[in-house]
């Protein structure tokens, strides 16, 4: 195995594209090194992107923030601006693993690991985040929603790496929230998770919403019917019940050592309902 520390995104992309064998990107490493130690992956090349200029920066852009791919969860969690703008996104990222993991783990790494239960992805999708991808011949943008393809599979070609994620501006009177269910209060992989982002009119009615579920399907799932259940409402009980039902209907989870199909299906609806209420309050709604 070779270890490379390129200083530009283009060099990184070329190194990855040129590698005939197995190549992996190293940002935080909190997924990669676990797989390496367990012998699940035996890369011929590891490309450490932490030394590429800009990838460890959080820069304001177009009313939102561009988060470098090598920004750790701890660093993001300490950024007052991002916390104020998209608290749900920050909640998703800072729930990943322990304090120690937070010191390393990155949003981009969490996204590229391709786990259906990735904590940062639902809120990113709810917020409409866009990933900036560098390839051997230039960069492109891709909505975070389109990146996960299935367990361990992502929509990046060989040689492509995510160099940053753009969190867009947040419209007035809007808010987001992320909740996940884990048996313990910390340290577990999410058994079910839900992110909600919504915008209110000046009367407190929902005019726009995105409801996104995690760990209940092969990939993160944007649930349109759930969003529609909120549109035009002030999150009355009926609306929340409809939201929960729509979420449960959108689930296609598995039974595994962490949860059952019945449990994930029911709890996804509960979490979506609770996250919606938090987002509603953050948007200025009173319930």
């Amino acid at each position, binding site marked *: 195995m070779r270890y490379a520390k390129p200083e530009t995104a283009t060099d990184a992309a070329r190194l990855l594209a040129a590698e005939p064998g197995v190549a992996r990107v190293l940002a935080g490493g909190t997924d990669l090194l676990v797989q390496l130690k367990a012998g699940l992956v035996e890369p011929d090349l590891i490309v450490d992107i932490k030394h590429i200029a800009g990838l460890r920066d959080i820069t304001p852009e177009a009313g939102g923030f561009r988060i470098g791919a090598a920004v750790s969860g701890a660093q993001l969690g300490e950024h007052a601006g991002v916390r104020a703008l998209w608290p749900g996104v920050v909640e998703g990222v800072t729930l990943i693993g322990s304090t120690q993991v937070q010191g390393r783990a990155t949003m981009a790494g969490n996204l590229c690991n391709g786990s259906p239960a990735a904590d940062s992805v639902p809120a990113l999708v709810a917020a409409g985040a866009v990933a900036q991808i560098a390839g051997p011949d230039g960069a492109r943008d891709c909505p975070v929603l389109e990146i996960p393809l299935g367990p361990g599979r992502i929509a990046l070609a060989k040689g492509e790496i995510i160099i940053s994620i753009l969190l867009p501006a947040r419209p007035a009177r809007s808010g987001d929230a992320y909740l996940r269910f884990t*048996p*313990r*209060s910390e340290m*577990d992989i999410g058994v079910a998770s839900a992110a909600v982002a919504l915008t209110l009119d000046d009367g407190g009615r929902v005019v726009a919403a995105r409801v996104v579920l995690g760990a209940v399907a092969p990939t993160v799932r944007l649930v349109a019917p759930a969003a529609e259940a909120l549109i035009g409402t002030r999150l009355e009980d009926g609306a929340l019940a409809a939201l929960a039902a729509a979420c449960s209907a959108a689930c296609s989870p598995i039974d595994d050592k962490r*949860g059952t199909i019945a449990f994930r299906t029911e*709890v996804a609806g509960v979490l979506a309902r609770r996250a919606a209420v938090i987002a509603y309050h953050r948007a200025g709604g009173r319930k």
Partner: protein
Amino acid sequence: MALDPTGKRIFKVVGTRPPRPDGIDKVTGRALYGADVSAPGMLVGRILRSPHPHATIVAIDTSAALALAGVKAVVTAADFAPQTDPTLRDIQDNCMARGTVLYDGHAVAAVAATTAAIARAALKLIKVTYAPLPHVTDVDAAMRADAPVVQAGRALESVPAGMPDNVTHRCEFGHGDLDAAFGGADLIVARSFTTAATHQGYIEPHACLASMTGDGKGDLWCCTQGQFNVRTICAALLGIEASQLRVTASEIGGGFGGKTNVFIEPVALALARKSGRPVKIVMARDEVFRATGPTVSSSIDVKIGMTKSGRITAAEADLRYSGGAFPCLTIEMGAQAAFAAYDLAAVRTIGWNVLTNRPKEAAYRAPGAPQAIYAVESVIDEACQKLGLDPLEVRLINAAKKGTKSSYGPTFDDIGLLATLNAAKAHPHYRAPLGPHQGRGLSAGFWFNFGGNTCVSLNVNTDGTVGVTEGNPDIGGSRAAISQMAAEELGIPYAQVRTMIADTASLGYNDVTDGSRVTFAVGLATIKAAQDATRKMCARAARIWGIDPEAVEWVDGAAVPAGPNAGKFPPLTLAEIAAVSFQTGGPIAGHHEFNADGAGVSFGVHLCDVEVDPETGATKVLRYTVFQDAGRAVHPAYVEGQMQGGAVQGIGWALNEEYIYGPDGRLQNAGFLDYRVPVASDLPMIEAVILEIPNPGHPYGVRGVGETPIVPPLAAVSNAVSRAIGVRMNRLPMSPPRVLAALGAKG
């Protein structure tokens, strides 16, 4: 020895909270554990483990592995002379499978190489041809006539004819006429329970460094709860005399019963002998889960009869335990402990051990008792609910006390259950108000506690300090307690005593650190060794004063004339006598070697408040209080530590911990991510209330406290959850999916 007005001894050092002797090394990272030591020329050993839950080993081809540059030795079962003694044969076969692999993770071969990477690569080059066999992992399924046979011909004489091969033992305890007693009950409650296998969960994986000289002398450094036991077993498995093998116990990173036997030690020694070089083996975490000893999984039926006023008239239990692929007698402990807290006219417990394709059981803190008491305390709580009785009052009515004929046979001497129950009743926790979706659970439990083979030597140094050499690895702070007892008996300050743990060449045989025996038995031996030393020091003083040794006694750290007519001499302190010890006869030391008996049981009562989220089934522990009889708390902080640590292991066992096997018989959660031990943010503070009902069998009244704390919590948590959701829970762990399903079923 000073006495208080009521004639009870006043202790100066015992009962205080001095800093422990190994504290500074542990907080600075200097303490050396199993994996922290290396040796020149050392090879790295790694073990190849079966991916199959049950298979015949058709062939093992190690030639490619041996040919790999850097590989210095490969061993398989062929490198171990077969054992005739069944217990040793099981241990040997568990360390290295012979002919058949019996569980996922069973060791098949091992290599020693110059680097870890080469050792890992070599494992991949070992070609093992397996012929998979049908497997069974559930205890009840394994008991059926059509169940796959894990091992044939292992049934003891206790097993009735015609039982399936997997049933290896049947035991029965109890007394009285059950039918008549059940007849006298107003309410009969019968319920079945299952508990999953759980692991001790020590954070330090097994690790050892072995070396063998050309003439067959072995040296073994390892993390263990019993270096003498390791020597006995390894010497037998390697075919060398015990005197040829010296075992040194490293600091131990947790054990809880799981490091009372051997897994990698004989393999490392065999590799060392074959390669002629030191070999270090350190288990990976997944190996610890797959191939070291979880406690038994269980399936239990309990039936009790209770009068309207809360008197238990009759009690019966059928307990089915599986200790994995090798026979195991833990069922005897569970069957005896089940109803031990109760004064019963008629009681019977029948216990079974059943083989399954799971790793070989190792003791886990009061082995067998937590499962049994979980079932019993759950049924009693259900009866209290049905009769509208206060669960604590019902325990008080039925509590075993001095003179009670115990459910396992003997009549109890002084025991602390009543005092412990009354302490719980008087405690504010028991009457604190509860909110919605909250419940309070109560549970009482005990552990037998042992004495066992113990040797201590106590050396008086010429500078007046004292070295206590004992043979029991110290997990929970026992070195501090032993130093306290030595200082107390010698009448010198604690700081002048240092307790060290000897290797097997430096002290007589000591039983393993288990059975909550160390503070009791090693403490007792230390006191007697101190008395041996003070007798010798009194004799020296007598010779210095020219009077009869009988006329000298030891008081407050000095030799003094015994009474007025013995002569007027100023006291000779230990330091003064020690300073002239060379001139008065030579170095002074006290010794004591014995097989200690007279251990006193320790009872505990636990109170647990939980809140259950009705929409997700998640359980949050809000408050937890432990009441336990320590007889005499030598170092209260470490007694509290045992109470808090045991309670939290019990909470983990009740809520989230389990060995999860799929239909393929492979362990699915062999890591700390999905084998979910409680983390700091899961828990409230654990309040520990120590009671002291002295044990007549110990000069200071000491009772073992280490194991009792894990016995009550399973039911304390389960009763709390059951009351919070209004559904009796009967399966552990109560993971959120199961609680939510129970809530859904309730409608």
